């Protein structure tokens, strides 16, 4: 089987920009909701823009929850982006209480209007790296800028899963999380210029191992 990255399609957001980035890097990727395709891939992207509750519902309808659980058990690289990061957590309070995939312990909450300037946070913000030697951030400087669009953020219970932190207003939040073969970013590396591209290259390198 040729090297392939599966981009999980569960009808939440624009997957094309991620697909185009892989094409730009001359790496084969497939936008798919087929569990077999996803399991056969060398690495899996869980993207997503939209609401948490809808996203879990779509994953459930497409029988993708067990697929994602299997990937994680098999130690296959899994990369969550934005809402994809949120879904990995135990629960979210976005428009009601919702259960998540519970692969990383913790919850997802909204920015507090009194502690930040504007909601959503839209724009470029710094990521402070807690482990500069981690494979995902190789050749990416500490405090580099990445592009964020979000109103909610995750709070991991196990602090050792936090790889990057970002400040918005008076709120410090987790912007990169990692646990074994699972990594996830709150920002959009595919919209973050050269360091975002570098991050995908680091992920691809990890998938090839």
């Amino acid at each position: 089987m040729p090297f392939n990255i599966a981009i999980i399609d569960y009808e939440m957001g624009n997957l094309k920009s991620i697909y185009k980035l892989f094409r730009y890097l001359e790496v084969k990727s497939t936008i798919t909701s087929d569990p077999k395709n996803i399991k056969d891939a060398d690495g899996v992207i869980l993207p997503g823009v939209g609401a948490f509750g809808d996203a879990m519902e779509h994953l459930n309808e497409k029988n993708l929850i067990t697929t994602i659980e299997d990937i994680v058990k098999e130690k296959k690289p899994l990369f969550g982006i934005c809402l994809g990061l949120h879904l990995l957590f135990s629960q979210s309070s976005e428009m009601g209480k919702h259960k998540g995939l519970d692969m990383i312990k913790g919850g997802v909450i909204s920015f507090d209007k009194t502690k930040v300037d504007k909601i959503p946070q839209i724009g470029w913000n710094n990521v402070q790296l807690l482990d500069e030697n981690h494979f995902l951030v190789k050749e990416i400087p500490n405090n580099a800028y990445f592009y964020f669009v979000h109103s909610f953020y995750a709070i991991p219970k196990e602090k050792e899963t936090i790889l990057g932190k970002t400040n918005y207003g008076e709120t410090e939040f987790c912007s990169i999380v990692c646990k074994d073969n699972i990594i996830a970013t709150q920002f959009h590396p595919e919209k973050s210029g050269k360091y975002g591209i570098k991050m995908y290259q680091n992920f691809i390198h990890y998938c090839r191992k």
Partner: protein
Amino acid sequence: MPLAKRIIPCLDVTNNRVVKGTKFIDIKDAGDAIELARFYDENGADELVFLDITASSDKRKILIELVEKTGEQIFIPFTVGGGLRTVQDIKEILRAGADKVSVNTSAVQNSELITEGAKIFGSQCIVTAIDAKRVYVESPEEAQQNVVIKVDNKYCWWEVYINGGRTPTGKDAILWGEEATNLGSGEILLTSMDCDGTKNGYDLELTRAFSEGLDVPIIASGGAGNPQHIVEVFKLGKADAALAASIFHYNEFPIEVVKRECNKVGIPMRL
């Protein structure tokens, strides 16, 4: 460092061409428009805006092709606007690879477009573009339905214009901005018609009224002639992003130079 202020070059396109020419790239077709977009990406642009100024539906295909080709090469956010009238138009542009769309005339005529667009695609990708022009009055009482602000010992409110600035609507720009935000628009692209093209600086009072009054990011547009104008629109106008065309196109002031000027006075920039 907090969230960086954004510098956004704007490309006016028509029939596959960038209309305002540039000194450093001889624009011939969309291929060159993409070259220009790449140039900006590599030289520090935080985002790009494409405005289709022909904006007739039969030309939509050309625009979609441009959006698709740009998406192949550019890995920073980009917004596309011009003549988008329906949810279907928005869908086609987003599907082609744009991250956001900007709506102007059609949103004034049919505000459902914002509501529907935000519901289907998310607030973050619906930018409402507002073209505003000052209307001076003797006293606030003279325009009680409007948000009147004192500017240099005079009073004025701002009127919304549509159809590329040709048609006045009687609508108050600040009230329309509030309404658009309440309907679900995630950002406002605010152009001062008084300042646009003058190179004398942005309308700081207009920008500040929007920035202080609304909860969503404000992209200021119209009037940039030098880096100091951009410093002012961030410091005094409290804008979240500054959009400009000619000062970047003619390479009078490269984006890097503008960003360094802003950074010198403590404005957070992605350098």
